[in-house]
């Protein structure tokens, strides 16, 4: 019994590979995903980017990010395939669903607390845009004051 989870797959294609080769790799991944009854949710191509360090002899590479929903077996297979593909110089799969869920929960919780506190103070639950900006500016000036104090020392 395999559960479906969301993963993020990032792979770096060698700079020698053509545009066509990158597209082929993408369809390859897509096929594997389909074979395992998964879904390819999103694809992002960052294009050619300089690497922070040399991998093999490559100094740059094409970054492709795919968001996939599927089983662990699917990830295993993709991992295996990418490992044996010569044009791929690096790849990484990260499970993201849990992290995103946590982030989402934190966001809604924060919103709720804010709304509750604001209604308790007799304000509308959502802060007005003008209001928020004023708040920010106030904080900034406060910081400036502190910095000034630092200078005086």
């Amino acid at each position, binding site marked *: 019994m395999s559960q479906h989870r969301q993963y993020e797959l990032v792979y770096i294609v060698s700079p020698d590979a053509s545009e066509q080769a990158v597209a082929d790799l993408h369809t390859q991944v897509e096929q594997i995903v389909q074979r395992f009854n998964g879904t390819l949710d999103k694809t992002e191509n960052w294009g050619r980017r300089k690497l*922070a*360090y040399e*991998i093999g002899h490559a100094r740059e*590479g094409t970054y492709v990010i795919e968001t996939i929903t599927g089983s662990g077996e699917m990830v295993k297979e993709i991992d295996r395939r990418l490992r044996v593909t010569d044009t791929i110089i*690096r790849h990484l799969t990260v499970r993201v669903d849990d992290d995103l869920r946590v982030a989402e929960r934190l966001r809604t919780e924060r919103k709720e607390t804010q709304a509750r506190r604001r209604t308790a103070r007799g304000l509308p639950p959502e802060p007005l845009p003008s209001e928020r900006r004023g708040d920010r500016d106030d*904080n900034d000036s406060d910081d400036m004051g502190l910095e000034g104090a630092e200078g005086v020392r």
Partner: protein
Amino acid sequence: MSGERGGGRGRGKKDDKDKAKGERPRGGFFRRRRVCKFCADKIDYINYKDVRLLSPFIPERGKIQPRRISGTCAKHQRALQTAISRARQLALIPYVTD
């Protein structure tokens, strides 16, 4: 003292700041109150692909900035750690620079 600090967390920011301003050690060393960047900016998920988010925490040598310097809270430092190591694997951030 630690209890005091814990109590101050939920309360207004102003109080804390005033306190920080008030206690200036005789050593002539004034330390500005550090705030966790991720808490302040309300960043829930530290994305490993966002180099611009991570770069302030990676000084020249390429090491991860310790918590005592950056002021990041424990929870976010942990998340930052994983994010940075992932970014390193993907050659977005160097392992070492010299």
